[in-house]
């Protein structure tokens, strides 16, 4: 495609009153020799758009630059199809609404923004998608329990093939051991049949689901659209090619042997929820010691959960499970005495109806601290402090005590995540609400052939959950989605919905990959990083820093990129000291040329220049918002958006300083425990890189404070002008960059 640039300068919304339109046009036509440049007072109007469309059609304009409002607005009217490159120069929100009108410096700012964009276009190519030749359109689901079976069925019903892998000899997971499940449907009052048989039958009836039982995943290699999975079944192995993976291996009960203080082990009649479930499934619930039908049963909630010594978190499902099991006992014998000792009854949402049902059947719920469980010769006794009576109490002559012993994700299990010595530290750390690093659990589930570890990174407590509230399926391993109680503690009802959601994400990843497009958050982006391997020094920074584990390494340390794992954040590009990584529409030289296009006034003009690299996810909308609120900030700054601060290459700082900028400000997203960086580590990595810059600057005799990074979120639009002004003020105090003019 030939590159023919058309520049359209809008004078509407007060732009024309504040700026010299002709001078702006001159930047395009004279400085940049742009062949087509038009002015109009209302480009977003029908006629304005027609002008542009006409140029595209008749004048063969392929690169359109609209200098007017922010790209957040009028995106729909300025849509000229995928074959036209569109760039917006934000004169309105970023210049006119934040600066003095009709002022020399405002004009200079506007002209610089036009220059930046035109410089960008010089270096920008329309990306061509990385399209796999044989993109696999199959989904592998690991785990054949409730969530896994649900995911498999949902994917299959959407018309895709499924490979369902279960390590046991039949499907079902916990459902196999369950007598019934908590209600999934209104009126949410009675336990329901597990529906296991029907589900298995449905799976068997689907020709597009291939089930492997007694099978584990030995290795998962490749990338979305082309995962090569080695399955191990008995002594033999099978190879399967799949496009996406759903991890639905669930959770396991917390190890009851650690619950000796609640009587576990002291009597066979102290059982876990799961053991009780198995007893119920056998028929009449009888106590293990002598087979006597139960008359008096007590449940102890939070046995392990919500306990800093054991599981600091709430296991989310146990309250509802105990309510269900209490109803088993009542169903078997309405006269039976059933007690539930609890901290808080967490029958959230519509499960309130279920709680009420159990109460109506006569189950007694007792808010109490259990102080001991004793075996008094066959029968059990619970001693407690009844918190609502403010009195010590006891329940005696109990036939059984059931411990609601919570759940531990399978992704943490091999590591024996909690209850061991090493893990006590983790528990203590959690107590202090100190950051718990995201360890990659040494587990044995997916066995990813990834440079960055064999399993999904955990967020906390071994659960590989998303850190994003808005994006619960965000994953740090593209194309691999966790679903059900492995992801976070949840009940069965939630797990079913969760499994269907993960199914969509898997299918979506396949469709996007098939088109060569990125998935969330840069969904649809066709660009991908290109590695100029001849100049690679095997420093491994790209492979280490990629937040998504997209880049493997060969034995020599050469990066082996997997474009379909890539999320296009540019972290690798920022990391590379040799600057060999670039995207067609985002590259180190492109950004360098953009910043170099900015005119730096002579020192004696006393017009300092500060360059701002701003993350386009949060900082850019915040800057727009400052404009919408007409908040004024320094006229000396020039803002260049970046995909993520993680893509910041240090050479840009060098370039900026040697170009004569007096300071560089970096605006990124929050990092740390509650990070908001959409690429997880962008701002954190930028911070680390910058620490190296300051040494260099110091060595050059430049104040290291001339380069400063700070974190803002989208709502900090009111703070951003202050941040900018304070930084500019500080730079002002340092005086001009001594390298100006060199």
């Amino acid at each position, binding site marked *: 495609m030939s590159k023919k640039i058309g520049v359209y300068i809008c004078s509407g919304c007060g732009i024309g009153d504040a700026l010299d339109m002709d001078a702006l046009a001159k930047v395009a036509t004279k400085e940049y020799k742009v062949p087509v440049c038009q002015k109009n007072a209302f480009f977003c109007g029908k006629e304005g758009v027609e002008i542009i469309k006409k140029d595209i059609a008749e004048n063969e304009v392929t690169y359109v630059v609209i200098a007017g409002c922010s790209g957040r607005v009028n995106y729909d009217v300025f849509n000229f199809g995928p074959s036209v490159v569109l760039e917006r120069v934000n004169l309105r929100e970023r210049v006119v609404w934040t600066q003095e009108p009709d002022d020399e410096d405002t004009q200079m700012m506007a002209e610089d923004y036009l220059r930046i964009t035109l410089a960008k276009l010089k270096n920008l190519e329309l990306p061509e998608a990385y399209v796999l030749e044989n993109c696999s359109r199959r989904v592998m689901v690991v785990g054949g329990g409730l969530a896994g079976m649900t995911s498999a069925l949902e994917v299959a019903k959407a018309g895709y093939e499924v490979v369902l892998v279960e390590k046991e000899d039949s499907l079902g997971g916990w459902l196999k051991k369950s007598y019934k499940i908590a209600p999934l449907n209104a009126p949410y009052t009675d336990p329901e049949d597990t529906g296991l048989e029907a589900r298995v039958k449905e799976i068997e009836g689907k020709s597009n689901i291939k089930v492997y039982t007694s099978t584990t995943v030995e290795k998962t290699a490749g990338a979305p659209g082309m995962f090569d999975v080695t399955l191990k079944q008995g002594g033999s192995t099978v190879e399967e090619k799949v496009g996406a993976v759903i991890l639905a291996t669930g959770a396991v009960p917390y190890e009851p042997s650690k619950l000796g203080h609640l009587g576990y082990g002291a009597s066979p009649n102290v059982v876990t929820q799961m053991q009780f479930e198995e007893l119920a499934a056998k028929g009449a619930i009888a106590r293990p010691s002598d087979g006597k039908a139960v008359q008096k049963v007590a449940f102890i909630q939070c046995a392990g959960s919500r306990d800093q010594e054991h599981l600091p978190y709430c296991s989310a499902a146990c309250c509802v499970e105990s309510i269900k099991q209490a109803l088993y006992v009542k169903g078997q014998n309405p*006269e039976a*005495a059933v007690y539930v000792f609890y901290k808080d009854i967490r029958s959230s949402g519509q499960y309130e109806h279920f709680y*009420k049902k159990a109460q109506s059947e006569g189950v*007694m719920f007792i808010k109490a601290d259990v102080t001991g469980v004793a075996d008094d010769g066959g029968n059990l006794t619970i001693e407690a402090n009844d918190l*609502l009576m403010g009195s010590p*109490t*006891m*329940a005696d002559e109990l036939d059984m005590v059931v411990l609601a012993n919570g759940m531990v994700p399978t992704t943490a299990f091999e590591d024996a995540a909690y209850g061991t010595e090493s893990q006590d530290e983790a528990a203590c750390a959690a107590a202090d609400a100190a950051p718990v690093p995201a360890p990659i659990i040494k587990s044995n589930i997916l066995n990813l052939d990834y440079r960055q570890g064999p399993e999904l990174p955990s967020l906390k407590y071994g659960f590989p959950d998303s850190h994003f509230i808005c994006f619960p399926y965000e994953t740090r391993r593209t194309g691999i989605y966790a679903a059900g109680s492995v992801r976070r503690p949840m009940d069965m009802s939630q797990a079913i919905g969760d499994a269907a959601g993960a199914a969509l994400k898997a299918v979506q990843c396949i469709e996007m990959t098939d088109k060569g497009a990125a998935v969330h958050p840069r969904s649809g982006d066709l660009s991908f990083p290109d590695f100029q391997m001849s100049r690679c020094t095997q420093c491994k920074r790209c492979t280490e820093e990629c937040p998504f584990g997209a880049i493997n390494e060969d034995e020599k340390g050469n990066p082996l990129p997997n474009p379909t794992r890539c999320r296009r954040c540019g972290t690798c590009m920022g990391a590379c000291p040799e600057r060999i990584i670039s995207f067609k529409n985002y590259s180190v030289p492109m950004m360098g040329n953009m910043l170099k296009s900015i005119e730096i006034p002579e020192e004696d003009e006393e017009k300092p220049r500060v360059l701002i690299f701003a993350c386009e996810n949060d900082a850019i909308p915040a800057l727009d918002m400052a404009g919408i609120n007409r908040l004024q900030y320094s006229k000396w700054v020039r803002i260049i958006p970046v995909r993520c601060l993680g893509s910041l290459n240090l050479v840009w700082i060098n370039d900026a300083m040697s170009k004569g900028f007096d300071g560089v400000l970096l605006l990124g997203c929050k990092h740390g425990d509650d990070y908001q960086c959409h690429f997880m580590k962008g701002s954190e990595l930028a911070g680390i890189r910058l620490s190296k810059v300051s040494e260099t600057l110091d060595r050059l005799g430049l104040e290291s404070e001339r380069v400063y990074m700070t974190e803002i979120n989208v709502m900090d639009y009111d703070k951003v002008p202050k941040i900018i002004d304070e930084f500019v003020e500080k730079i002002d105090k340092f005086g001009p960059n001594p390298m100006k003019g060199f």
Partner: protein
Amino acid sequence: MTGFNVSSGPLKYDTEFAKEIYALENGRHIKKCMQCGMCEVSCATRKEMDYSPRKMFLLMRTGQREEFFNSNTMWMCSTCLMCKARCPRGIPIVDVMHDLKCYAISEGYTERPQATFYQAFWTEIWNRGKMFEGGLVARYYLKRGWKEIRKDAFEMKDFGMDMMKHGRIPLKPPKSIKGLQDVHKIVEKAKAQLQKGEDR
């Protein structure tokens, strides 16, 4: 209302007494209590009551029968319906209090003046088909005895005089209704039905 005046040793949960109470006409609704405490706050006579309803239910499940029946809780209820209207579990607490009154009377816990008052009131209705205030007062004091009359007579003097003076206490009791025997038959039948648990 106060905290629990109970022994310091551990109290045993006991479902037997609870079963007895659950078996009362509205007793089953008690099971739904989630111990939120709304009834205590809502009660018009909370300052007088020994135990709020929710605390009564706790006494019940720890089997403290004497403490339960000796409390004044049910007798303090003034039927203002606030707890019933507010109870988030929809427990008709007022109706439960009716049951507890009935049960207390039938179990012989009739020492409280309110028990006398209730019985006197009911006798009025039973005898006439209607209530006659003069008759009620007479019956009440007859049953409570001289000591109480002497104590109250002074207190009640102004009230009685005022009411009389303004023509609001008829001197003669109203005539019994014609269908008094019908009322008796209906009530006897209904009580028999209730006894057999046919009401629900």
